[in-house]
Structures are given as structure tokens and as C-alpha cells.
């Protein structure tokens, strides 16, 4: 699933580690999320959306093509 994590993180001038610390996950998880290799749980998705003050659907871009991810 595509997402705007890297873009929003860059806009806030945060490192991957800083974002990881804020949502209490590992830096590797942020790397995997940004590269689209890993889809977060709904709880983590809400936490990330909350940190960036956006709606989940503005952060994670779902399309029918993603359904097998």
C-alpha cells in the first residue's frame, strides 16, 4: 500500500528514528512502511495519522490493486 509517510516526515523535518520514537516502533518499521513493504496495523495507522494530524486515508492510499499486499 502506498503512503505519504516519507513526505510528511520530511515536511516535519523529522528523522526516521524521531518518528519511530514518537509512535513507539522500531526505526526498521518506519523504513519498511516508507518503502511500502509493510502495512501497519490499524492502531499504528491511527497513531501515525494522529502524529501528522491528518486522516488515515490521507496518509495511506488504498486502491483495489493493493488488496494483495
Amino acid at each position: 500500500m502506498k503512503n505519504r509517510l516519507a513526505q510528511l516526515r520530511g515536511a516535519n523535518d523529522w528523522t526516521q528514528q524521531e518518528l519511530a520514537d514518537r509512535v513507539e516502533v522500531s526505526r526498521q518499521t518506519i523504513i519498511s512502511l516508507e518503502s511500502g513493504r509493510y502495512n501497519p496495523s490499524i492502531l499504528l495507522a491511527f497513531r501515525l495519522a494522529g502524529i501528522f494530524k491528518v486522516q488515515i486515508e490521507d496518509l495511506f492510499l488504498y486502491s483495489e490493486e493493493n488488496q494483495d499486499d
Partner: protein
Amino acid sequence: MTDPRKWIATRVRLGWALLAAGGLAAYFARWATSATPYNFRIIIVLGTLLMASGVGLLVRFSAGLKDEASARRIMANVRDERTVMIRMRAGNRAFWMSSVLVYAGLMWTSYAAKGDLPVLSQDALWDFLAAAVVVPLAVYIGSMLIDERTT
């Protein structure tokens, strides 16, 4: 919410306890007599495993005793949902490998009892049982390494 420093301190204490328990087991097994019906090498192996687990915990968590930020980061890394998922997936694969090996061993023993297959010698049985422990462990570690790179 869990206090990260207390959480880390508990794991460090567990590390020391495992290290001590492993050392004691290995130490007493060394002095045990060979006249008893137990194979004390197993206790030495168990002691070594306990000690290795203890050292692993100490190495992993001691850095978290420094300050709150380090403790919080280590706790986040351990509880990280992706890491937990990778561990669970690896555990599932290891479980299936273990089941297959044990089932194969049971089948072999059953057919051997009928005379359709050769009966396993003591050494062959020992090797098979050792493989039934080591192979699932290797599958677990291999699965974690692969998933860490691909997930």
C-alpha cells in the same frame, strides 16, 4: 502505561538470574556421578543454553539502564508490531518443521517395529532427536533473517 526503566530492569534481573541458574546447572552437572541413570551432558547443555539466554538478555537490555530515552527505545523495539509479526511467523514455520520431523520419527519407529524399516540405533536416534531440536531452531532464525529483509 508500563514504566520503561522498570520494564528494562526486570529483564536485566531475569538475565542475571538465567546466567546464575545456567552456571549452577553446568557446575553441578560437572561434579555429578556418571553412575546415575541420567545423561548429565544434557544438563550441561541446558546450563549453557540458560547462560547464553542470560548473556543475551544482559547484552540486549543493559544499555536501557542508562536513561529513560534509551529504555523507551529498547522497549519500543522489542514490542514493535512488525518485529512481533516476524517472530510469530518464524515461530509458526519452526513449529511446522518440528511437527514434520517428529511425525516422520513416529512413522519410522512404527514401521521399524513392524520390521518394514531398520530399527534406529542409539546413536542414530540421538542424532535424529538433536536434529529435531536444531533444525526448527535454524528454520526460526532463518525465517527471521529473511523476513527482516523482505518485510
